[in-house]
């Protein structure tokens, strides 16, 4: 009996102590430097219209979302979240892709072995590669469906016509990202799928052969091609894509948020 009382007392004391530490942290300059005035992490959150606004207004999310949106815009049946999911899949693919980069060397002699090793000897290697591959196919699909959704809602009409153009560029970039990634495992599937694809490219009039030569780093696919497509896949195309994404998101808000209901 006495012992439980003692436990209770120490528990109480501990709680008080923790509360004091928490207050001290929240009053510190470091905490104040991290969270903006008005941030819910600085002043606490209770549900009120003002605090709901502050959650967006005083966080980095304000770059992406306004404080309020039209009521129909939050209906899942209107957008099916396709644009947001495409963006999320891009982040998802970046994260899994960075993991894969730790174990992969883009040369004809090593690429296939590296993936074999990744799948058999690296913890979660097989799972992460699977996630990257299926996520990539899914992203092609969501971007495509997003385009269809926007078309059927007539959301490409003024003032959104330029954002539609950006969107088509993003769709093309997504396809190119997927296609450049296709070569990297350096197996029979990769080699011959890319051979079929780049042969078509060679038929472009006037400069077709030159474009093909630049992309392949030679007259036929080889270890130089692998290095080129790797660089395109992990650095250049994502870089370009992020720039267009930024413009795309900015225009969504500048053009008055998502389009109106039908």
């Amino acid at each position: 009996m006495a012992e439980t009382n003692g436990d209770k007392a120490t528990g109480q004391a501990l709680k008080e102590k923790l509360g004091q530490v928490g207050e001290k942290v929240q009053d510190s300059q470091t905490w104040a430097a991290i969270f903006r005035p008005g941030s819910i992490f600085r002043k606490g959150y209770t549900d009120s219209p003002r605090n709901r606004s502050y959650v967006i207004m005083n966080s980095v999310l304000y770059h992406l979302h306004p404080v309020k949106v039209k009521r129909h815009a939050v209906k899942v049946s209107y957008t099916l979240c396709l644009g947001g999911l495409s963006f999320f899949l891009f982040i998802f693919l970046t994260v899994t892709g960075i993991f894969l980069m730790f174990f992969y060397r883009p040369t004809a002699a090593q690429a296939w072995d590296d993936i074999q090793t990744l799948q058999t000897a690296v913890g979660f290697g097989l799972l992460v590669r699977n996630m990257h591959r299926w996520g990539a196919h899914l992203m092609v699909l969501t971007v495509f469906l997003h385009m269809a959704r926007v078309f059927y809602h007539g959301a490409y009409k003024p003032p959104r016509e330029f954002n539609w153009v950006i969107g088509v560029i993003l769709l093309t970039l997504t396809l190119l990202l997927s296609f450049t990634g296709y070569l990297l495992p350096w197996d029979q599937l990769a080699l011959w799928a890319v051979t079929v694809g780049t042969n078509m490219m060679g038929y472009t009039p006037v400069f077709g052969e030159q474009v093909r030569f630049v992309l392949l780093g030679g007259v036929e696919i080889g270890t130089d091609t692998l290095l080129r497509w790797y660089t395109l896949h992990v650095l250049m195309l994502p870089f370009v894509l992020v720039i267009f994404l930024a413009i795309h998101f900015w225009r969504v808000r500048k053009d008055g948020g998502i389009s109106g209901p039908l």
Partner: protein
Amino acid sequence: MVEIPEHLRKRAEEARAKAEAAKGGSTADVVEATEAVTDAPSENPNSGDEKIPAHLLDRGVPASKQPPTKDPSIISPSQTGPQAGEGPDGHNQRLLTVVKAGSIQDVKTTPTDKVHVWPHLLIAEFLAALAITLFTTLFSIVVNAPLLELADFNRTPNPSKAPWYFLGLQELLTMFHPMVAGVTIPGMGIFLLIMAPFIDKNPSNKPEHRKFAISLMTVHLMFWAVLVMIGSFFRGPGFNFVFPWEGGLFFEL
């Protein structure tokens, strides 16, 4: 864009309902109702009129139209305000005109019904992201990504297929010259897609007003979907037509 806060709108609606109920009854209720309505600025833009006293409105009339004073040298203070140097710091102020609110505030948009992004939108987005992560992870646990044998330039697999999203093009390759199938048609497709908002001048986004655009897009999408399906599932060795339930499936993702 004028936006009426939700609680004010609700209050106004309640008051209006109350006024409706008490029509002809106690006048106090009606007064209360009109007060609540004027809380919302766009509801009654002319309500400012009553607030301008009549004698101030008189002074807005140009001097030429005002009744002439007996002696032009003696200006009555009630008409022109205080004399020069009379006001604080030697300034004087004179009312030149009264601008009614309705004449400068041209409210064109009707109030829109809005909700807070937090929590309504963010929770939906979070759940969507969670669902797709879950789906991809589970799918990845069950199905492995293909890794065939090492690339070999001397052994061409039969059939050789492009990634699925290019299989429509590969399918076209069986019908047209490579320049048409691989360059002209997809190039035109992307170009037309980019030009869509500049070609389609119809301002309406209602499906019933844009039957042609919707039919065209649907035909276009179906065309590619069918080609991709045929290329993926109905093409066997030599890229010849096979039924997947007879000749087997020649498709890797």
